[in-house]
């Protein structure tokens, strides 16, 4: 069995058999990796906490037919600050779930990987504006997989360059006055949310903290981003239901 090395972020784990786990990871070059960690549930396992979700790891794996097998793992960043804070953990879980859903096995996932890594690094040190950070992550992730929200022209007719304040999830952007009837489920945005939306979409890991935005708008945009992501994922995002606990 050939051995290979990669870096990865653990996204999720599933129990397997008596003491093993399947670890789902995202790596830059190989995309999603599903690998078996043998004996990891035993207290004396050599892996210890190295394969817990959120951990950024340097890995050596055996390539298997179906599932790979983890041979060695070293922590690069455990992101323990996220795991030790219930709020950060809730927002971070949504990020992991989405990264898991959009990534594919054996597919270059550099963009998704870097987006997730940067978002986790920001989340680790941010004690406020976590909802905004998640919204930015969701909108950027959707852009990476080809679903940028249309905000410069009407998302339905594509002609009118002055769309109003209704955001249609179905058409993927703002609607103009003439197209309002085409999606009755479109979400109305407050003036503040509408004005901030372009900045939120363009925010970078350096600039996002400086965005001047009210908590209400932050949560409104997150709701929008969440619905937008769930629509394109074709299923609801399980972890975002638990953001209010």
């Amino acid at each position: 069995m050939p051995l290979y090395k990669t870096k990865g972020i653990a996204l999720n784990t599933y129990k397997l058999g008596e003491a093993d786990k399947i670890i789902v990871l995202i790596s830059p070059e190989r995309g999603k990796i599903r690998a078996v960690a043998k004996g990891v549930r035993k207290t004396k396992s050599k892996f210890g906490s190295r394969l817990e979700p959120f951990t950024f790891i340097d890995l050596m794996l055996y390539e298997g037919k179906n599932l790979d097998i983890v041979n060695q793992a070293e922590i690069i960043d455990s992101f323990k600050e996220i795991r030790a804070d219930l709020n950060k953990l809730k927002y971070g879980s949504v990020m992991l779930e989405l990264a898991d859903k959009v990534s594919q096995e054996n597919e270059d996932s550099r963009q998704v990987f870097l987006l997730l890594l940067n978002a986790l690094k920001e989340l680790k040190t941010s004690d406020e504006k976590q909802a905004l950070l998640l919204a930015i992550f969701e909108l950027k992730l959707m852009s990476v997989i080809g679903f940028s929200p249309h905000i410069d022209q009407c998302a339905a007719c594509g002609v009118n360059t002055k769309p109003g304040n209704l955001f249609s999830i179905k058409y993927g952007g703002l609607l103009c006055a003439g197209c309002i009837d085409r999606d009755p489920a479109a979400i109305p945005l407050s003036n503040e949310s509408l004005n901030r939306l372009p900045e939120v979409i363009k925010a970078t890991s350096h600039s996002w903290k400086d965005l001047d935005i009210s908590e209400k708008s932050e949560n409104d945009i997150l709701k929008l981003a969440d619905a937008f992501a769930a629509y394109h994922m074709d299923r609801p995002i399980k972890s975002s239901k638990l953001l209010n606990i």
Partner: protein
Amino acid sequence: MYATPVSNLIDELSKMPGIGPKSAQRLAFYLLKASQEDAQKLAEAIVHLKETVKFCPVCYNVTDEPECEFCADTHRDDTIICVVEEANDIVSMEKTGEYRGRYHVLGGAISPIDGIGPDDLRIKELLKRLEGDEVAEIIVATNPNIEGEATGMYLAKLIKPLGVTVTRLASGLPIGGDLEYADEVTLGSALKGRREI
């Protein structure tokens, strides 16, 4: 391929965890060769289990009595409740011989990624047990993984304002292990939880 009673048994056995079609086949043929008495005993044990075992109405441990042995025992300390994920964790705690308080079985742990929230666990039932002034301490003995930690943090947020002390099992180095192989999170937490000797 097989006679109907044999294939029925194989189908039923292969529903069990860790039993694939091949193992189910082997077990079915073992039972076919076993004495009438042994087969009867197994069948009766399964039926008896399903008929008599239920959840303890106080702590949700599994029991065949009106209350489980730990809730019925009058010599146990009523001021401490140890919160565990599953009933078999009680056995692990009991084996230590160090604990003489009560238990509460949550039936799982909070896992945002799997969509399992507080409402899916027996947390309301735990809060109900705290209504009197008797309980002074809750020991969170959930697994030391991300779900267990999340559950612990959630319980602390909920219960601390009620004036009850919430403690967490220490995590650190396993006895008999080598420091060299400890990962930095475990070793860090062992360092934080160090004690004077």
